[in-house]
């Protein structure tokens, strides 16, 4: 019964997989009739505002909340000590990341604030405005302590240790090595090297972090409306740390206004909200304001990478050697940990290329800044910028066109499965086919000719390329083996209702990607009903199968396969009933367009609604022992490969104003291979949105700190994000190499754009600046940095110098 037809081979009824089907949940969103957490109001609801630390590092000497409590409408003031009686601390480490360490963290700190913006005191009031008024009346006495701000000196003997119990400020260190790196560099024809910086930035979800927790003292149940990507994980977290049985915690995520990895973490202030709800037995709402978002949403990608590449006389890469340093804030973030980004960097550098010798070290240090953790395309944009930056330097060193250099060095199609020098297992990639497809889209000779023509007129355009790989469909090798209660499997329940319509409940979640749309397509095709007959439930731990949620591009590949298998199982169950009713062998029947039909000839025998009516209301007319299981659940987990890697290549055309340092993006192209495409319309927009998010980090977004550890961005006027006027049109193409791990064959598509865009932009800028011998390697590539590289403004920070060496 496990038959599924290649959606592109024939156009039969209900062949929805592979089609651009609009999203069923879009209509309510365009009418403003979605339901985000802040749209929910419960009886006797209260609101929280937090007193947040103005110091990067300070001892809390005392907290006086009496004046705050005098404000009319203020209900309670909670300190760390108050909440610690009701909530157990957590330590965010993973056992498989050897030697990793972090300190216990609580909803509110007991005696020390460790970053600017850390929640220190919670004020509960009848309205958020009143709570905010009262925050100003809480008196916290601080004794400032030395702030560890610069990650370069975090491990120096003279630097203070943030958590004395840990002994030093080292969170994690790992060297990933294969082959003979030093030998390769010793005999290299050319060696290129540069120091790259990726600027600390953040997700800036338009809907801020949002949580509404309600505890019923009589039933003992905690219900949390949460803007999260992983409701089942959060159910477990709330249960464990608030000492409530897991079954008594229900997490509901209604519409989520953007996540991108920001909303898959455990935030102390959100746990505080749940703890306060437990204590007060009233609904408690917390919606972060924008300043709180910038200071307390996870940051990411604060890396300095010294890297070099060896090439032989034939223009072949022989070795890559990398030293990565990253500062992650004062605590590793629970439960995914903040060492994974650095770990990904050393796993992914060099990923698209065929070369023998590799060494990459990551050093993950603690510091007094906002904690960092996984954000869209975790580690990929960093690894890709380093790899592709080195590739362009190497191509220049051996006097090869960057495209030709890539063609010589990329892993060749048809040579899979294989393992990369970094130890990543690739089932099947398509670098060469993707490059060929990209070159068919961009008119490369034309762009080069135009570049030459315009240079003569003082207009400086650049073309940049970036090949990339992307890690999707993670197995328990990502988190589960390290001890984290993060599900790599996912499930789907499919039920036929009495009217013949179909209900699908899935453990993967929707934050705008179109999860509900693809589950609906898959289930409609698998069962054999018109797509408008399928409804989808996501984001409720009480009503959906246990699953991991949506992150690391697992929704389509993992959740989609579970949906396919459960849909096929329901179809099989329905045909079994139909066979009994129609006196036919079930395998001579089919379910098409909501009708039971003869498989041969297609003659209609009975509407599915009629079958369902009899099963549910006149079961007495069926053979007594006949199974009538019109609801089936299937789960899926990957088996052979720890991850399903995807690949692709991007190209960027831009213009640099060498007088102002401003970059004007002209066009971006991307070819990506996410395996089986379930919905081209959704995949293309994942790629485009991802690219623009990558551009944000490359050109604009930066969480800037003063030397004292003050966060220097306070609003969206300080923290620039890509807006419509600066963004280019983006052309997307595809190659499809389905994974054989599943019947569906889908891999992830949500992070490819972000993975490649910063590298493509960087290489295009450096291509534009070639006549000046100037280069930039420190993101974001601001006008100041470009002008510094051009020698037009002073170099105020070494990273701005943009030095690269070649020998």
């Amino acid at each position, binding site marked *: 019964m496990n038959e599924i037809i290649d959606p592109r081979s024939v156009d039969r009824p209900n062949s929805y997989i592979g089609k651009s089907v*609009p*999203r069923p949940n*879009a*209509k*309510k*969103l*365009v*009418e*403003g*009739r*979605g*339901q*985000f957490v*802040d*749209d929910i109001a419960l009886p006797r609801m209260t609101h929280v505002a937090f007193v947040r630390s103005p110091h990067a590092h300070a001892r809390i000497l005392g907290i006086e909340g009496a004046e705050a409590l005098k404000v009319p409408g203020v209900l309670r003031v909670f300190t760390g000590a108050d909440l610690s009686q009701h909530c157990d601390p957590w330590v965010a480490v993973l056992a498989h990341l050897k030697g990793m360490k972090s300190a216990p963290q609580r909803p509110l700190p007991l005696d020390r604030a460790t970053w600017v913006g850390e929640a220190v005191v919670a004020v509960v009031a009848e*309205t958020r*405005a009143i709570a905010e008024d009262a925050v100003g009346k809480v008196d916290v006495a601080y004794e400032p302590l030395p702030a560890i701000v610069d990650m370069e000196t975090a491990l120096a003997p003279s630097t203070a240790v943030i958590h004395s119990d840990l002994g030093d400020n080292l969170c994690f260190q790992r060297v990933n090595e294969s082959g003979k790196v030093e030998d390769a560099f010793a005999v290299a024809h050319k060696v290129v090297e540069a120091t790259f910086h990726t600027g600390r930035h953040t*997700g*800036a*979800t*338009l*809907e*801020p972090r949002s949580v509404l927790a309600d505890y019923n003292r009589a039933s003992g149940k905690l219900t949390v409306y949460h803007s999260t990507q992983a409701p089942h994980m959060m159910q477990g977290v709330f249960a464990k740390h608030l000492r409530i049985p897991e079954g008594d915690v229900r997490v509901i995520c209604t*519409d*989520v*206004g*953007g*996540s*991108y990895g920001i909303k898959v973490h455990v935030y102390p202030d959100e746990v505080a909200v749940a703890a306060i709800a437990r204590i007060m037995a009233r609904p408690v709402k917390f*919606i972060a*304001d*924008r300043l709180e978002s910038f200071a307390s949403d996870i940051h990411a990608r604060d890396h300095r990478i010294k890297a070099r590449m060896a090439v032989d006389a034939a223009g072949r890469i022989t070795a890559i050697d990398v030293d990565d340093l990253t500062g992650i804030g004062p605590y590793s973030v629970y439960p995914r940990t903040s060492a994974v980004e650095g770990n990904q960097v050393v796993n992914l550098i060099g990923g698209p290329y065929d070369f023998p010798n590799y060494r990459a070290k990551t050093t993950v240090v603690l510091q007094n800044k906002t904690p960092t953790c996984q954000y869209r395309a975790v580690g990929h944009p960093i690894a890709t910028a380093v790899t592709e930056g080195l590739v362009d330097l190497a191509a220049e060193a051996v006097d090869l066109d960057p495209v030709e250099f890539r063609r010589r060095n990329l892993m060749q199609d048809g040579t899979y499965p294989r393992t990369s020098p970094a130890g990543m297992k690739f089932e099947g990639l398509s670098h060469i086919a993707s490059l060929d497809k990209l070159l068919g889209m961009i008119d490369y000779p034309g762009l080069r000719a135009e570049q030459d023509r315009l240079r003569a007129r003082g207009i400086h355009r650049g073309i940049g390329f970036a090949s990339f790989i992307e890690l999707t469909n993670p197995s328990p090798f990502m988190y589960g083996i390290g001890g984290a209660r993060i599900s790599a499997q996912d499930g789907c329940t499919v039920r036929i209702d009495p009217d013949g319509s179909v209900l699908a409940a899935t453990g993967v979640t929707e*934050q*705008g*990607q*179109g999860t509900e749309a693809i589950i609906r397509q898959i289930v409609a095709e698998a069962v054999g009903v018109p797509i408008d007959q399928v409804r989808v439930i996501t984001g409720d731990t009480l009503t959906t199968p246990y699953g991991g949620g949506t992150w690391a591009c697992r929704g389509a590949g993992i959740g989609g396969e579970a949906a396919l298998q459960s849909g096929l199982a329901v179809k099989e169950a329905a045909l079994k009933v139909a066979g009994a009713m129609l006196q036919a062998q079930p395998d001579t029947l089919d379910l098409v367009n909501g009708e039971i039909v003869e498989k041969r000839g297609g003659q209609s025998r009975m509407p599915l609604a009629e079958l369902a009516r009899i099963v549910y209301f006149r079961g007495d007319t069926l053979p007594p022992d006949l199974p009538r299981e019109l609801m089936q659940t299937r789960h899926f987990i990957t088996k052979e490969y720890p991850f399903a890697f995807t690949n692709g290549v991007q190209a960027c055309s831009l213009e640099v104003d060498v007088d102002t340092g401003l970059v004007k993006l002209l066009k971006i192209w991307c070819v990506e291979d996410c395996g089986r495409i379930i919905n081209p*319309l*959704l995949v*293309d*927009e994942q790629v*485009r*949105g*991802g*690219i*623009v*998010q990558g551009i944000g980090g490359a050109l604009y977004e930066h969480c800037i700190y003063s030397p004292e550890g003050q966060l220097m961005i306070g*609003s*969206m*006027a300080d923290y620039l*994000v*890509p*807006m*419509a*006027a*600066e*963004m280019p*049109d*983006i052309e997307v193409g595809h190659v499809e190499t389905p994974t054989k791990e599943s019947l569906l064959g889908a891999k992830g598509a949500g992070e490819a*754009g972000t993975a490649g865009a910063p590298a493509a932009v960087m290489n295009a800028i450096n291509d534009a600046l070639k006549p000046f011998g100037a280069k930039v390697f420190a993101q974001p590539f601001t006008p100041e940095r470009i002008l510094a590289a051009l020698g037009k403004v002073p170099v105020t920070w070494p990273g701005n110098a943009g030095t690269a060496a070649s020998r």
Partner: protein
Amino acid sequence: MSTDVNVTLTVNGERVSRRVEARCHLIDFLRLDLGLMGSHTGCEHGICGACTVRVDGAIVRGCLVLAASLDGAQVETIEGVSDSGEIRDLQDAFIARNACQCGYCTPGMLLTAADLLKSNPRPTREQIREHLAGNYCRCTGYHAIVDAVETVAVRRNGKAAP
């Protein structure tokens, strides 16, 4: 502390009278006092455009306008223009083109797009991007939104053509 102010205004064609705090912003008035949850709070600094609504026919930032200043005003929100059908073609185009992902920016984006097409029925892609440049969308990268607005402009012109 704030002083309360009495206001009577028209919201989506219905007259409402409320006593509001002088410091209450229009977006909070709409969401908290009237329960109109379609307009969203994004940045509270007038930058992101998620709270865009219409006051007396012009789009404004709900987070920069005080409710107390709106006595006698005509306010329209995404709920109102959805019910009237005024921007149905834009909404349909956003759905068809997948120009709305998480949906948080979408109501503000739609009202801004409608505002553009009212003043400039035949905008270029650059003009569309320029007009929407005050509305932050983190999901789409804007390309699909520009496509959707362009499609509606072409269709409206097609219908209007003699």
